[in-house]
């Protein structure tokens, strides 16, 4: 049996974390979800992962833009500046798409944004977005992390 996907989620609202779990479950995605409840924890985890010799260990980052301490912008920049996670897929979850997000999504092929679900249909859609990102950009998707 294949290994479960490793997903980081930077989100301070437990209700939204639970929604993501629901979305994964609905789509029958076998995942381990690591929750980072503020910007500081998210940055620290990215730094320590990048130093870890066993890389890459993460298949996807689900990012809320409005986090305590450091916002999603800072976290995305840090992730993209790492050695091993510069091309890791990211789903920005926001209820208000900003110009900054749109511009970044336009030039970063491994970045999409989607609104936080407010209906069951949207919840299912979120799960589909996760599946799609994992299949296109995740580990073992024929798109290995760059050497060096």
């Amino acid at each position, binding site marked *: 049996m294949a290994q479960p996907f490793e997903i980081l989620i930077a989100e301070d609202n437990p209700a*939204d974390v639970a929604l993501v779990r*629901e979305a994964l479950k609905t789509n029958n995605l076998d995942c381990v979800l690591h929750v980072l409840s503020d910007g500081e924890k998210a940055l620290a985890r990215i730094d320590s992962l990048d130093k870890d010799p066993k890389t890459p260990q993460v298949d996807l980052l689900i990012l809320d833009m409005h986090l305590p301490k450091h916002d999603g912008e800072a976290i995305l920049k840090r992730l993209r500046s790492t050695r091993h996670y510069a091309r890791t897929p990211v789903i920005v979850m926001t209820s208000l798409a900003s110009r900054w997000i749109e511009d970044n999504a336009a030039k970063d092929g491994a970045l999409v944004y989607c609104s936080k679900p407010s*209906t*069951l249909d*949207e919840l299912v859609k979120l799960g589909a977005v996760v599946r799609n990102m994992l299949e296109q950009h995740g580990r073992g998707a024929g798109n290995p992390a760059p050497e060096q």
Partner: protein
Amino acid sequence: MTAQTLKALTHLGNGSDPASREILDALPVAVYITDSEGRLTYFNAAAAELSGRSPQLGVDQWCVTWKIFLADGTPLPHDKCPMAVALKGGEVAEGIECLAERPDGTRFWFMPYPAVLRDAQGRITSGINVLVDITSRKHAQDQAEQAALLLSAIVDSSDDAIISKDLNGRITSWNQGAERLFGYQAEEIVGRPVTVLIPPDRLDEEPRIIARLKAGERVDHFETLRRKKDGTLLDISLTISPVRDAKGNIVGASKIARDITERRRAEAEILRANRDLEQFAFSASHDLHEPLRSVKIYSELLTRRYSDKLDGQALEFLGYLRAGATRMEVLVSDLLAYIQVSKREEGPETADANAALAIVLASMAASVSESGACIVSEPLPTVPMHAAHLQQLFQNLIGNAIKYRSRERKPEIHVAAISQDAGWTFSIADNGIGIAPEYREKIFGLFKRLHTNEEYSGTGIGLAICQRIVDQYHGRIWVDSEPGRGSTFRFTIPRTRKSSE
């Protein structure tokens, strides 16, 4: 009084024939005659009337009057009066103004015209004096002086700067308000060109103002900047009117300058406060949406996932929970739309109403066909407003016409606009349930509703948004209605937008 008249009178006075005396008696001016010593030998009826007394012939000396004063009010002894001076061989200046008092205390102003008669040897034999009553002229003169004093007191007490200039742009008068406002004293600025008050980058304003004045036009509430003596700039409002001479020629201009620095500051503050409020409302509505989203989706999840474990009442309660959250969501977005009406829209400020209506009808296609509504529109004008605002007006008013339709007939909606002097009046007429007269003004208020949510859903913001949009263009919105028959909403859009310049 000409020398010739005086000479004729002298001849009359000299003649002792009754005919001459009759003429003198009948003259409407005061005349009296004295001997060489100044004793009165004759006075006419007009002299008695003017002086308010009947002098004693041969006793009263020098003058027919009771008491005399100089123009400055100092008493003048009779033996120093102009007639006495003349009889004593002195020169009498012409045009002296004297004040006399009658025995009853009343006073009058007069001008004496004394003359002496001489015999063949040149000795003075008698004198004749004509007193011309100038009281009414003096009064008129006093009144004019009083009025001028009052006017200058008013001008000086004004907080506004009141300045006059000639057509060469030189300052000709400068009140205390101008001294306070600009810091120049009248002495140092009168005679200088008005351009000393104009900042260098606005010097082109002056020729334009002068040109308008020469054409006889006024300049009303022209808001601009002017420079004080110390170089600081002032926000002022100028009202400039041409000044004409007695013949009607324009000879200069009067200028009232009002300091509007404070008003400008207040306006900027209101603008800032409004922007803050918009910003606040925007974030608040976003932040309110977030918890609502959780309520909505979890109540949906509960319903879907646990419907077999919940009894009927629990499911009913869940239904209320979801309905409440949905309603709150609509409220928050409507409120946001209401607040954002005042936000500056991008794009041109003209809208083709036909295009705006077409866009709205396309977006409403579902509800139009569901209700079976028949919507007819006349050719519509292009109006000076943002298309988004006009669309919002159509959207809300046509949406209401469909929503508040009668159960007995299919909705028929007629959209038209008529052109008038001041602008356009749009009308959206329906055959719906109508509105009772007592509610026709109320409905434009925020959160004002006439129906329960079960009867007709809504937030009570739609018409308030319409009101706010129309207000922004200085137009008007109102409704005429016959309950049970239908309503006609009308709004006006003025032809030229009132700019804030």
